């Protein structure tokens, strides 16, 4: 599904190298987790994959189902099936959440040559999915993320994911800032979307989320590289001992 080869990325504006040769393959239908110290480059990887400006790729490639991602516009990557749940979801005053969702769903359908969803059908689907995430009608009417609590913003990301039905979902610390119940809701939202044709890359600092979303593979990222890859037990090891042992071992 997603293959990242030798990805090197620096900031466009300054000579700061952030990703120093990332290699990673996420197979179709699998859930991979990435853990790693603050500042190791996890969010940068997710932004570069989704096409945010400000970064310069100096080497390497990222292939999603045979399509080379890095040359595509952000909206083309989305239409190709990539989705990023932001670590810091963006507030957009003046744009209603519903308008935003419908515009996004229909733009992707159009890009894929599918018919637009009718208003009635859209409303029905959105209400159903919002209900499962305990997002009330009022939140759907309000401007995108404006005045939402931290946890509400994260649930709203999952709602967008559920509506867009991407095939490659990247979740950047979607668990941070969530209370225990909200964490469960988000995990259920993710689990409901798990399917043979859909893959996940879950960036997290905590085992808590991984208790609910059992990952198939766990990677450790440090200083712009994937330094270790293992099974779910790797996350437990980090939870108990931190990164010191792992980092000492690879260095």
């Amino acid at each position, binding site marked *: 599904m997603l293959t990242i080869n030798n990805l090197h990325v620096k900031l466009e504006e300054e000579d700061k190298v952030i990703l120093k040769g990332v290699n990673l393959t996420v197979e179709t239908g699998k859930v991979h987790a990435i853990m790693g110290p603050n500042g190791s480059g996890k969010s940068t990887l997710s932004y570069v994959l989704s096409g945010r400006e400000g970064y310069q790729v100096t080497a390497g490639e990222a292939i999603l189902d045979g399509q080379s991602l890095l040359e595509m516009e952000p*909206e083309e990557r989305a239409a190709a099936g990539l989705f990023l749940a*932001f670590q810091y979801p963006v507030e957009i005053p003046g744009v209603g959440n519903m308008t935003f969702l419908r515009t*996004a769903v229909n*733009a992707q359908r159009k890009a894929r040559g599918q018919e637009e969803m009718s208003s009635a059908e859209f409303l029905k689907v959105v209400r159903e999915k919002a209900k499962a995430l305990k997002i009330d009608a009022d939140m759907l009417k309000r401007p995108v993320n404006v005045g939402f609590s931290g946890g509400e913003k994260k649930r709203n990301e999952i709602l967008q994911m559920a509506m867009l039905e991407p095939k490659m979902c990247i979740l950047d610390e979607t668990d941070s800032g969530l209370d225990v119940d909200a964490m469960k809701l988000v995990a259920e939202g993710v689990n409901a979307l798990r399917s043979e044709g859909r893959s996940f890359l879950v960036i997290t600092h905590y085992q808590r989320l991984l208790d609910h979303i059992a990952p198939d593979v766990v990677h450790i990222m440090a200083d712009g590289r994937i330094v270790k890859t293992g099974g779910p037990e790797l996350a437990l090891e980090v939870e108990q001992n931190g990164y010191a042992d792992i980092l000492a071992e690879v260095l």
Partner: protein
Amino acid sequence: MALAKAKGGAERLAAVELPACGAWLAAARGAALARAQEMGLPTRRDEYWRYTDPTTLTAATAPAAALFAAGDEPPAFAAIDRVTLVFTDGVFDAAASDDPAAAGVELTRLALAGQADIHWARELYGVLEARGQSPVPRPLAALNGALATDGVMIRVTGKAARPVSLVYRHAATTSDAVLRHVIRLEPGAELTLLESGPGAARFSTVTEVDVADGASFHHIRTQGRDHERRTLTHLFARIGAQARFKSFTLTANGVLTRNEVVLELLGDDSIAHVAGAAMGDGGFHHDDTVFVTHAAERCESRQVFKKVLKGGAVGVFQGKILVKQGAQKTDGYQISQSLLLDEDSQFLAKPELEIYADDVKCSHGSTSGAIDETALFYLRSRGVPERLAQALLVQAFLAQAIEEIEDEAIAEDIRGRLEGWLARRMG
């Protein structure tokens, strides 16, 4: 006393010939011309015209303006049940107009009012304009009073049956039109006034609105899309107690637009809102100049102005809230913002507060900035194409001004016009 300086445009003003008309109107025109001569025509050196060059507005003849082909865009307010009065290059077109009686108001044209002695019109014509000459002179409003060839005089005693819709058509490339409207809302009366269209190559309108106690006046206007048109408008309103005044203007295109609004809150517990949304690309200069005076207690005023500027367009906002002594519990709000779609465009703002009462709440803010790149990326990451994402953010930026329109059907019409403009300009 400063040295007497030569008054601007003295020669031109001396040569003005007043339109022929009946006695009271002739006297009012003469008085207006005398006011204009006393003040002289504005020049760039005047503080009030520092950001907008009045040369083409004061010139003896109008610069030519090509006509705009609207294509298949429906005319403004087409879906609204209204009484339409059409003026083409300032000349009333009876065949294209509705029977004014359907509005359920007293309505006479200025061109006919001179003969009849309509006392309420006589008592208003030029009166609010003259009041509005202090503390800032507005000589072009006085000149309008001297030269206006037509306009409407409306008196409303109850709730008007339908909105009165003034449609201004532009037919000749060098037309120069001057219209004056006088409106009196008696206590408790309600009226919606719609205005639309470019009007002429150079178009001047002055509207004087007297809103009596408990009355309610709504005004929504769209200024025509002719790229080369020049428009100067003045809106003077005197607002009584427990009254409501709301005015909204949409401007797209036009090489020069100056909209002056002068509001006086004279009775307690009233509200006055004035808002504008303007978009321009290239040769576009748009000036909102607003003066709100609070002279009564517990009144609320709002000024909400938003401009989207592209391709070297210029936006100007001069807005003042004056709170007089004794105008306690005044709630005054003013915001002016521009969205600059490129680095060639600019926004010049001069927000002012002057307060002589101690128990008031007044705020003003002015900002100017580019499209929020983070928001743009967020939208695109959800699959929204860049152009559409930009258009959504522009609409979001203008939304606060459009929310000032109370009537949902009219607001929808305005939003549709906005979307059309964006689709052409950003699509």
